[in-house]
């Protein structure tokens, strides 16, 4: 069904510190996407590697968030959005996430998301994290408690909230709220977590703690992160893609992208001559 596509920029080097070649977790293939009549993604090809952090950078409006939201079919919520060709193939089962036959809910159960602005539900801290387990039909109280606790620990929030699990999530500080949302995404053991500019609404200290957390999380889960902050991309990601006007201009190992970009457009953006 999908035509085999060659990557725009073949990945030649593996990430630093890796002895083994990276394993493919998902692959965007010749993806076209429309908002109504606006052609938002144009033939994007990009790999996402297992248990690595992949970042998407580019000026605002370039389509990086649009691409991210394709991964868990967020676009399906709004009328007028259209996947117009190509797809995203998730491994190991070789499923095209964007196929009409694939249930978006199934996709979202496998691929979780953390948003730009922290959006805790108007529920207690405990219930916020337990939510993603409850929608999976988990009822057993002690199991819920265990999973919530480990998710909160995974999100480096447990020590701060363990005595106030019954409080409303909205009572936490901005950075804590965002970690709560990460715990919520973690609780259900997803295969891939999408981060949509997760620190753009946070202060520098909270940002640092989220970045640290993201780097810890890649031990367990693949991560795709959109960021407007190039230093952040350079600090935390193993692979990076530069997008412009709906196209993926360049993709490669982060160090290579930032130190020795192949394309002039990427270099201009990285060095601040544009954007």
């Amino acid at each position: 069904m999908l035509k085999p596509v060659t990557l725009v920029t073949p990945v030649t080097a593996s990430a630093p510190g890796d002895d083994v070649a990276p394993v493919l977790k998902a692959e965007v293939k010749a993806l076209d996407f429309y908002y109504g009549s606006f052609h938002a993604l144009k033939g994007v090809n990009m790999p996402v590697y297992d248990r690595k952090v992949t970042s998407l950078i580019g000026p605002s409006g370039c389509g990086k968030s649009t691409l991210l939201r394709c991964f868990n079919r967020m676009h399906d919520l709004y009328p007028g959005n259209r996947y117009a060709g190509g797809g995203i193939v998730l491994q190991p089962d070789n499923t095209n996430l964007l196929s009409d036959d694939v249930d978006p809910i199934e996709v979202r159960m496998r691929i979780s998301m953390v948003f730009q602005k922290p959006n805790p539900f108007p529920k207690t801290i405990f219930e916020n994290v337990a939510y993603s387990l409850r929608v999976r039909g988990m009822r057993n109280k002690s199991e819920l408690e265990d999973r919530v606790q480990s998710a909160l620990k995974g999100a480096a929030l447990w020590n701060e909230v363990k005595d106030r699990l019954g409080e409303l999530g909205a009572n936490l500080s901005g950075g804590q709220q965002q970690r709560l949302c990460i715990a919520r995404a973690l609780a259900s053991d997803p295969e891939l977590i999408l981060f949509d500019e997760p620190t753009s609404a946070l202060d520098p200290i909270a940002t640092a703690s989220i970045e640290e957390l993201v780097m810890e999380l890649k031990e367990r889960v693949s991560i795709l992160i959109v960021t407007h902050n190039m230093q952040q991309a350079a600090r935390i990601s193993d692979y990076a893609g530069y997008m412009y006007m709906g196209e993926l201009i360049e993709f490669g190992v982060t160090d290579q992208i930032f130190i020795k970009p192949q394309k002039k457009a990427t270099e201009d953006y990285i060095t601040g001559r544009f954007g």
Partner: protein
Amino acid sequence: MTISLPVTVSPRLSKKASRHLKERFIEFLLFGAAAISVFTTVAIVYVLVKESWNFFQHVPLSDFLFDTQWTPLFDDAHYGIMVLLSGTLTSSAVALVIAIPLGTIIAIYLSEFASFRVREIAKPFLELLGGVPTIVYGYFALTLLTPVLQILFPDLPGFSLLSAGLVMGIMIIPYVSSLSEDAMRAVPMSLREGSYAMGATRFQTAVKVVMPAATSGIASAYILGISRAVGETMILAVAAGMQPNLTFNPTEPGATITSYIVQVALGDLPHGSIGYQTIFAAGLTLMLMTLVFNLIGAWLRKKYREVY
């Protein structure tokens, strides 16, 4: 040390007393219009309390509260408001059993499930439903619903609180659904996205995320529905019969506070008579009830104010 700066204003631009005066006068007029609302409230309280005061000169409060008969126009007059209250509460309960579940379901459906087109058609339609005069609903209850109900329950009398209450429920649906839906649509999309991103279905998102976030608005909608039910008059006057009847059985006829007022007003009671005063005492009771509901509503709104 203060520095005094020179001030020179050309006569053309100086503050004109006349212009200022005109502005003030207009503002005063507009304020007067706005203040009419306060005067209305004061006047309502004044009229109700004044006539009720006269009423309670003749009838002890304990009789009013605890007597189990309501026969103010008989020679052997009794003034037990609980007779009318029972009719009001029973018919309102029937109405709310219909209006609250259906109104809530419609609100969830329109806000979270329905397509744009369905919503665009259904909302104005519901609005029209809420705009139908209540006397027409009364006619509907008496001439259409009661005969149908009598097929199902052969013992049902020609006038019943049940029939009136059911139609009242249908009348109230739009009030409950439209306010609840507004509250749910005001819940920011980011909360829904958060829920969907966790793999939740529409129903899970609606019930576990959107509804809790909209609790205060939904509570307001319910309170409005209750106030409507308690204050509704014509449906009951037409279809529930007007015999005072201390009962909580909806299949019996009964009078409510409101239908009693209509009944008395239809007759020709002299101004200042005790019968005339009873309708104000009844009206005051009604006002106090709606006041209590509004206070509960305000308290609920405060308790569950939107936290998103």
